[in-house]
């Protein structure tokens, strides 16, 4: 399976235990709606969109998302999260053609 470029960002960069931080997840994905036509061949480009995203922190599910085709190309998902000790933050996402990928990041609170 081809790898897809994705990125997890946590703001602010350094955080303390118990702090509420902004988490955003970006993925390079075409988000094809299935309604667009190829300009040269006049054929409909088949739909291919991210349909589910899951945020997990130390094995506990924080946020789940059901996604449809009307999200922009290279979608961004931003929400907040409460820091609760050291551990791993991971994002699992799948798309309508059956691709499943995972991206993770270490969480290290200071102080």
């Amino acid at each position, binding site marked *: 399976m081809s790898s897809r470029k994705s990125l997890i960002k946590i703001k602010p960069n350094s955080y303390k235990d118990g702090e*509420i931080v902004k988490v*955003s997840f970006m993925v390079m994905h075409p*988000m094809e*709606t*299935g*309604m*667009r*036509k190829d300009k040269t061949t006049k054929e*409909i480009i088949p*739909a291919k969109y991210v349909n589910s995203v899951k945020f997990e*922190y130390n094995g*506990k*599910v*924080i*946020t*789940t*998302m*059901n*996604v*449809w*085709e*009307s*999200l*922009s*190309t290279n*979608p*961004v*998902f*931003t*929400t*907040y*999260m*409460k820091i*609760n000790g050291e551990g791993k933050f991971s994002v699992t996402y799948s798309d*309508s053609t059956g691709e499943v990928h995972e991206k993770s990041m270490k969480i290290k609170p200071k102080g």
Partner: protein
Amino acid sequence: MQRRDFFKQLGAVATIAAISPAISFADEAKKPKGPNDLSFKAALDAITGGKGAVESSKVSLKVPEIAENGAVVPVTVEVESPMTDSDYVKAIHILATKNANTRCIDVHLTPANGKAMFATRIKLGDTQDVTAIVALSDGTFLSASQNVKVTIGGCG
């Protein structure tokens, strides 16, 4: 004589112009339909179970009033909520009323989020209302909506 011909041609152009909207409507019907064709009312019923949602000032929906590019419209939904185990925001739904599939995204939150906020970017095909429906842990639904003027559509 030349003048007469000119007026004839002018008349022909005018009739074509009058017919052309009808042609474009026929094209509209031929447009490919997306994988999920869902109207706003059907989506609202599916989310709230037929209960409907109450418009509330607790939900703040931030969308630009005029979107120059319909392909990338930033949307931010924030809900006033303590986000404790007994009282939290269960889900945020973002809907675009005139898109072929009105449902954009469902976000299921938990108290571990700490703050009820969600931001993303959506595609809008035409000038329309963007609605956020918020499900609270006590089973009630709140909503907020705003009209967005789209200069260039983002679908198709």
